[in-house]
């Protein structure tokens, strides 16, 4: 039985690595060291702590005007899901599509698109910041998630809202999913959008329904919503990190 590589490394080697000496020497595989990834990942905890536990949290993302709308709003991630279930729903104009709200709620809900459209809505022109670095400004209309959560009755044990999606981004992988804490789920600008720029939400942008999480990076705003599940732990979804991209090393708290 061999020791894991991390145990073989002396303290000095670690210190040298932290000082950035090894990457400079071209030893790129230090980035593959789990301990180093964990250590560097601690900075995210610091960001989360500072942005959420130290600084005020009930802040609003800036809202823009019609004049600021991006001429082209880039669609990223899945833009045309091939999943057969989704294709069937899309071919019928999503008449059979239902949003399920389940998990730690008093009253699970099953809502059609027409029911959602009949509810009080919020329209907002906001900036979408992709983790890749670009930004686009779009106009979104939808139902505040907080209203649906009040209707369903969130149980006290619930800590997160998990968004289950219809699309498979990488073949053979799990379907896309995301999650936020209840603070973001009930934020006034967190809406389930069925309209974009005054028209029904296009498939490239997540038809029939996507969530808008306006104070975090774009990958949090999950598209092709099928269900929202209230849970007390993220451990049993995917690799347990709270989202498709989080399972691949990206930050769960994507505030920067």
């Amino acid at each position, binding site marked *: 039985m061999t020791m894991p590589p991390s145990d073989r490394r002396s303290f000095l080697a670690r210190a040298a690595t932290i000082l950035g000496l090894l*990457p400079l020497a071209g030893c790129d595989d230090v980035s593959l060291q789990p301990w180093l990834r964990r250590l560097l990942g*601690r*900075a995210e905890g610091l960001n989360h702590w500072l942005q959420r536990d130290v600084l005020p949290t009930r802040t*609003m993302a800036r809202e823009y005007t019609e004049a600021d709308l991006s001429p082209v709003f880039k669609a990223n991630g899945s833009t045309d899901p091939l999943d057969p279930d989704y294709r069937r729903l899309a071919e019928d104009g999503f008449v059979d599509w239902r949003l399920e709200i389940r998990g730690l709620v008093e009253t699970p809900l099953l809502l059609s698109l027409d029911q959602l459209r009949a509810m009080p809505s919020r329209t907002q022109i906001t*900036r979408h910041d992709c983790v890749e*670095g670009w*930004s*686009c400004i779009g106009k979104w209309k939808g139902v505040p998630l907080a209203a649906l959560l009040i209707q369903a009755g969130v149980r006290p044990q619930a800590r997160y809202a998990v968004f289950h999606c219809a699309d498979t981004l990488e073949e053979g992988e799990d379907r896309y999913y995301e999650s936020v804490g209840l603070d973001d789920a009930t934020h006034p600008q967190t809406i389930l959008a069925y309209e974009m720029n005054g028209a029904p939400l296009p498939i490239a942008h997540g038809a029939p329904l996507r969530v808008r999480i306006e104070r975090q990076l774009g990958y949090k705003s999950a598209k092709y919503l099928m269900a929202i599940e209230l849970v007390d732990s993220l451990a049993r979804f995917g690799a347990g990190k709270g989202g498709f991209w989080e399972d691949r090393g990206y930050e769960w708290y994507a505030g920067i």
Partner: protein
Amino acid sequence: MPSAGRRIWIVRHSAVVRLTHWVNVVCLIVLLMSGLQIFNAHPALYWGLASDFARPLVVLPSFPGWATLPGVQWLAMGRRWHFFFAWVLVINGGVYLASGFASGHFRRDLLPSRAQWRAIGHTVWDHLRLRFPDGEEARRYNILQMLTYLAVIFGVLPAVILAGLTMSPHLDSLVPALLDLFGGRQSARTVHFLCAVALVAFVLVHVAMVVLSGLWNNIRSMITGRYVIEEGGGDDDHAAK
């Protein structure tokens, strides 16, 4: 009449300056390389609130693997390196600033005197001929050094940090004035990049000057603090050479 110059050892840099200098070296290298990794995810720059893909400011080819951290395309890991060392940079910079103000280092060593202002043309001319002061004048920074250091410490570094923070959608919601300061998130991203270019230019010139004006004396003084100056015949550096 070059008389036999007397070698005098002085303490040039305080312990705090030396320590924070080298931590800064590591931070800037890691931040630059991981920053190029992040930039490669979308190697184009824009001006304004958002990205008008039809009108980029500039589209660059991707930076090669030897310049990025990690060397392969790996945005998630580049972000981890970047944000971790951004914290180190900020904490290190905070220590340096607090110490610099408290000890009088900035006032004493970085504020040019009137005499130095008056002689600025002369100093520029000396630099162009790669003639560096010795004797009494070598005890302190020359005015070009002072102004450059002041611009980096109180100009470029705060700007690169603020522009970086402006890219955070959460911090934008907390301090919307950040967006107004830079004229939008995409402008802030461009400023962040330009600041990085300015820092690279500064480091290149800085290292060149270190080499030209006495490599080992300079490096020793930044490690142990001790710096040697030639006194005597060197007092009037124009006569001595």
